[in-house]
């Protein structure tokens, strides 16, 4: 092409590649909890619906699966973009390490395929399949979701703790041990942490929708059930996550000292290290601002040794091999946000759990519903923060101690342009997704549009007259704009 165009496009691709990867992952990771946990919640509702003959539960499962169809579709395409990006943004990383790093993704492909197949059967099987066989077609979705998460996190763990390969003198990967690649040191805890996070976030997102509905005065069985199923899942996950997270932090202390120094914002190696809340590093690399809790970082790192526990500081790692000061600020802030929000959500869960245990009811104060309504967004913020900690905390490495991000990036100068286009496109897609999910909910509230008829109808030619209550026949041509007054 013309020299002018080449000149315009000649922008350093590395920061843009990082931004694009971060942005597309940040969007995709919101859809992950829905993909992993929502199917489980829908099955809980489905099970209850069949077992206890509860039409509201069936309706809930049916509607959830309809929404899932949309979120899964968007998750599938944003996931496909990530697959492309490994090549488009990080070709030099993939070219060198694909032979090891690629293995967990091959396994993930297996789970994703299974998930895509059964989600299609489950979502489209409501009408014509028999109740129990239909329920069981949903179970592989849950299993595949767990397996898929484990595989992808295994790949991420490998970037933090690369193992299972040797490099020859030319820097080529030789002698791969696939098991050691997948089950790298970081994999077990990271996987558990992400899985619990998926159920926690998925549960809080869905519960928050029904919390808002209850705040608006809808206290019917259907709304309560929607809230209870989702919130219970989240409320079990949140305290568990506190324990897993605590274990994880100590693991990072023992195995990834550079990241740990960034997390706790420790400039110099010392004992009796305070836990600093907020604050930042100044130009000299000293901690400025924030609240200090004396000795706590040391105590938490190794409770047995207490305040005499030594924490390695940033100064014990060479400058080009550890996060920059600005990156340390980001990691530390993200850490504080994750811990703060995680604790808040765990407390909210305990409140719910205690009241439920003694009274079999939701906590009475309105404040509870307000917090539950906010929990969806807060849990997503915690998820994003946690992911920021592990990714920015690894900088400047793409494969820890083996390859820096800069060396793995593409040399194509046009990345700034694809970044801008993708931001615009994703913004459009996410806003539309939100609008459409809202609209689906509104249409349902206004009395129907659950399709021509209810679930589990007999096979064979479709009967016309047996539509159960709540389900309204909407002819193809009629655009549904206003409320349809046919609610039973």
């Amino acid at each position, binding site marked *: 092409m013309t020299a002018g165009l080449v000149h315009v496009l000649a922008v350093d691709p590395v920061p843009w590649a990082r931004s694009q990867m971060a942005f597309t992952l940040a969007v995709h990771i919101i859809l992950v909890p829905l993909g992993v946990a929502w199917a489980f919640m829908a099955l809980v509702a489905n099970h209850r619906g069949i077992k206890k003959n509860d039409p509201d539960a069936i309706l809930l499962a049916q509607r959830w699966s309809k929404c899932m169809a949309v979120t899964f579709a968007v998750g599938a395409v944003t996931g496909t973009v990530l697959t492309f990006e490994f090549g488009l943004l990080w070709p030099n990383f993939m070219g060198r390490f*694909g032979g090891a790093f690629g293995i967990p993704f091959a396994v993930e492909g297996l789970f994703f395929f299974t998930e895509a197949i059964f989600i299609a059967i489950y979502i489209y099987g409501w009408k014509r399949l028999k109740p129990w066989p239909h329920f069981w077609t949903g179970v592989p979705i849950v299993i595949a979701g767990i397996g898929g998460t484990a595989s992808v996190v295994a790949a991420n763990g490998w970037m933090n703790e690369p193992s299972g390969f040797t490099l020859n003198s030319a820097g080529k990967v030789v002698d791969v041990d696939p098991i050691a690649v997948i089950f790298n040191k970081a994999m077990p805890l990271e996987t558990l942490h992400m899985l619990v996070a998926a159920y926690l976030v998925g549960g809080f997102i869905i519960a928050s929708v029904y919390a808002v509905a209850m705040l608006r005065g809808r206290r019917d069985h259907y709304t309560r059930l929607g809230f209870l199923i989702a919130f219970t899942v989240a409320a079990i996950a949140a305290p568990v996550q506190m324990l897993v997270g605590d274990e994880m932090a100590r693991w990072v202390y023992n195995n990834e000292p550079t990241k740990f120094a960034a997390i706790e914002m420790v400039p110099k190696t010392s004992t009796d290290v305070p836990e600093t809340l907020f604050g930042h590093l100044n130009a000299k690399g000293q901690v400025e601002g924030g609240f200090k809790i004396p000795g706590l970082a040391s105590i938490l790192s190794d409770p047995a040794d207490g305040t005499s526990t030594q924490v390695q500081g940033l100064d014990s790692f060479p400058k080009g091999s550890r996060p920059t000061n600005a990156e340390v600020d980001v990691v530390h802030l993200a850490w504080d946000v994750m811990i703060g929000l995680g604790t808040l959500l765990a407390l909210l869960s305990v409140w719910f759990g205690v009241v439920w245990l003694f009274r079999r009811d939701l906590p009475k104060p309105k404040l509870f519903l307000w917090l539950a309504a906010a929990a969806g967004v807060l849990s997503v913020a915690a998820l994003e923060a946690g992911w920021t900690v592990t990714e920015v905390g690894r900088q400047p490495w793409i494969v820890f101690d083996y390859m820096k991000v800069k060396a793995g990036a593409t040399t194509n100068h046009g990345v700034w342009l694809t970044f801008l286009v993708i931001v615009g496109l994703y913004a459009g897609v996410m806003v539309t997704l939100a609008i459409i999910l809202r609209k689906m909910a509104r249409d349902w509230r206004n009395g129907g549009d659950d399709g021509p008829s209810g679930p589990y109808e007999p096979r064979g030619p479709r009967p016309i007259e047996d539509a159960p209550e709540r389900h309204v026949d909407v002819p193809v041509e009629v655009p549904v704009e206003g409320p349809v007054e046919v609610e039973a």
Partner: protein
Amino acid sequence: MNWADVVAVILMVGIIAYALFGGADFGAGFWDLVAGGAERGRRPRAVAQHAIGPVWEANHVWLIFCLVVLWTAFSEAFQSITLTLFVPLSLAALGIVLRGSSFAFRKEVQRTSSQRNFGAAFASSSVLVPFCMGAVAGAIASGRVPSGGQAGDPWASWLNATSILGGVLAVAVCAYLAAVYLVWDARRIGDEEMVEYFRQRAVGAAIATGVIASIGIVVLHDDARYVFDGLTSRALPLVILSAICGLGSIVLLHRDAHRGARLLAMGAVATVVAGWGVAQWPYLLPTTLKVEAAAAPDATLISVVVVFLLAAVICLPSLGLLYVLDQKSLLQADESASPEPAS
């Protein structure tokens, strides 16, 4: 045969599956695009949407499969391809986002204007993506992707005779496959008028595809000599078989025969894609990088084979279940937009 060859065959199986299933999906979008105004195109669009509704995500997993096998087993080739073909691959990725999301959204909106907007995005990206994929294949076949994880020319690599031909051929193949499948789907939901509608288009698309493929032979002769030589020697049986299948499907469609056309159409496409693979053997990137030289260590290749076998054991029966349930009309879109059977 060593492990590298086995994985290369697996990769080819993935590409064929993507062409057959993903391709038909894209083709349905092509017919959506050319179906005319909202009123006139309502029924063909409804048939197309009804047909691909339950199966589109599963169909497109094959793309992920191919990319993952390529980067895991043949990392260096993946590096060269993505560095060189940054532009068409970026366009394809953006097209996939636009296509998948607008398809999912269109189903859930009722207003005609919103349906039209999402429909337009869905349909135009359904043409853009296979074009880009075909152009990428053309770039590889004509030897424009260098080996050694190097970047070739960012523009000339995919804006050349072979790539343009590859792109146009890919779009035509998709349209052909989709039209043949849609004849079947229209018959399944009992819409005789649509059966006729797609039958005519299937014949037209089949002829167009044949013409483009014949022109392609001439283009390859001048622009991609290694692949041309392969197609006219060791891959010749596959080329002939493809032509026979294609002609057979036209005859069956023309006679309005109820069986066989679909299978023959699939055969025509599968053999031509396999022919490309055989023609450029033993090169992954003709004529600079051989399959064996590009391959990852054996343990990695074996993992890919194991995963593939597991997929064959787990996913293929599941996929079979999905298609059987779908074909028996046990999977139905629970939505107002689903077409009613014509009485």
